[in-house]
């Protein structure tokens, strides 16, 4: 589906309004307990993780090697965000706040079902739409998801065999 510039301009105005509301909603939410015993998430909570888990299989289509890989990406992405300065983290908090706010998810991202049940084709259209948007902020939001997702996957050994990367070389004593 080709998205017109006009439609994205309207979406941009909606996004601005949605961001304000989403920001407020996020502030007023109590922190949720982290259920996973093995890894302590430092940034992503359950709802954020559902977003990453919906985006990763589309971003990394043709690259993910097995069923547990999405969870690896979710954790790798969380770890990557925790290494970023506080000001960048709060920008990302804003982005996740927008994406988890249902009206914004539907109107700005065009994803109708909740992220945990999101249709792959809709997620792909969402990513393509933001990637090619006439609004620089949406392109850079796509780019942030792109960079974090690919860094999370290709930083780990599981991704290397498929791309012929042997890993770090041996050092001569």
């Amino acid at each position: 589906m080709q998205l017109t510039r006009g439609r994205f301009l309207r979406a941009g105005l909606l996004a601005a309004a949605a961001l304000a509301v989403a920001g407020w909603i996020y502030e007023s939410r109590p922190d949720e307990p982290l259920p996973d015993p093995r890894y302590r998430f430092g940034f992503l909570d359950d709802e954020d993780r559902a977003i990453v888990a919906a985006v990763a299989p589309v971003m990394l289509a043709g690259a993910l090697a097995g069923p547990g890989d999405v969870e690896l990406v979710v954790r790798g992405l969380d770890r990557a965000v925790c290494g970023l300065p506080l000001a960048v983290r709060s920008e990302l908090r804003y982005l996740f706040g927008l994406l988890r706010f249902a009206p914004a998810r539907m109107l700005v991202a065009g994803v109708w079902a909740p992220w945990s049940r999101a249709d792959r084709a809709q997620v792909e259209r969402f990513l393509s739409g933001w990637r090619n948007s006439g609004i620089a902020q949406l392109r850079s939001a796509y780019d942030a998801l792109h960079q974090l997702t690919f860094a999370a996957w290709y930083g780990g050994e599981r991704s290397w065999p498929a791309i012929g990367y042997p890993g770090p070389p041996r050092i001569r004593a």
Partner: protein
Amino acid sequence: MIQDASRLTQDLTLEGDVAIVGTGAGGGMAAEVLSQAGLRVVLIEEGALRSARDFHMLEREAYPDLYQESAARKTADKGITILQGRTVGGSTTVNWATSLRTPAQTLAYWRDRFGLRDYTEAQLAPWFERVESRLHITPWSEPPNENNAILRRGAAALGIQTSVIPRNVKGCQNLGYCGMGCPTNAKQSMLVTTIPQALRRGAVLVSRARAERLIFRNGRAHELIVRALLPDGITPGPHNVTVRARHFVLSAGAIGTPALLLRSGAADPYRSIGRRTFLHPTAVSTAIFRDPVRADSGAPQSVYSDHFVDGVPFNGPIGYKLEVPPMHPVLMATALVGFGAEHAAFMARASHAQAVIALMRDGFHEQSAGGTVRLKSDGTPLLDYPISSYVWEGLRRSLVTMAQIQFAAGALSVLPLHESARPFTTFAEARAAIAALPMEIVRMRVMSAHVMGGCSMGEDEKTSVTDGRGGLRNVENVSVFDGSVFPTSLAANPQLSIYAMTARNAVALASRLRAS
């Protein structure tokens, strides 16, 4: 003495003759020169102290640990990604070891436009020789890796001259992981040369410590307030370090130094601090070859071409320098455009992938005024660098040049890093498509590993922040020794220029301080 500020349990006050903010090319070189002169030096570094045994050649560790903003620092509009070090040794710990002198044409422009009369090749030559010898800088004598060889081969086929890159290495094993910290101590970075030497002479190094502001009194800097970071190296902790010194040297890099002066409220009657910041905005062209390239392996940079800068007049279209980047999985996958099957198909051929980069020579033309450093609400710096149409046109032209070189070297396909590009299989097809690419931020990948300017030196107080010796105007006892004093970009990788100019300015400062 070495102090990790994240382990402090109370505030700390330090005194010395000279306090140096930053431990990269400027701070490291200054520390050696000043401590050699018998001066007591205190070094303040925001990043952590890491060494060869910590360098595991893993991107997932190196980028968050050794780089500003996990190697993903962005300009204000997110249009340019900046690679900049943040560890003891600064960018010298993670750079690709390229060590080129300041081009003669750049120095001539500085003399002509900024009144920097003693910035001549002849007057700087002894300083270049001194630091080249100190850091074992010699032209790379081994064969280039295939990534670099392709640049040389393709250029030669088109009659474009290339040269061998001098590198600051000793006993290099040709591994290719300079960007993640040298695991064998072969790279002669500040981490293994000048800083250990200064420490042996009694210098004090405080790591994980963010210089917040200078306190001025009666036209002098009185003390430096430093915030100790928590063990995560990011979050400000509860303790302060106060540094009192006769003289303060700012070497926090061309984003960090102007930001520190802005936070300190330094006198700036002509609002010049942080202005004219340059990046060498860089375009990337990737290509797939039939035979393996393995751009992850071997000295990252050993061949360059100045064909498109050397002798190219400043008043015409922007010139660009050609080099190649190393490519490891994360760097490649995040820079690569597209997602899903398209992205995976390229990555599947990663070991056959080659890349050329073109670095724009910014700052030499009225339509290339660079960027401006300002402060975010939390006091951390932000570089606003709008890309002018003049610079965009250079980026576009460079994509054509790079594609032509890659096809001339036998590329099966060429993919310029732009969201609207796809792999092209002939030069004619690539050239036509590149002509039509929309030159807009975030569609076109623009990178930078060289931050320069923001505290421009010069003769005219209205247009310069520092004098020709790096002295900060309007303050008696502050010097700027880093790439922020450059009044334009260099058209060369900056480390060697910073070393040589800092050595000259630090020797002059040392004799002044010893005399008083």
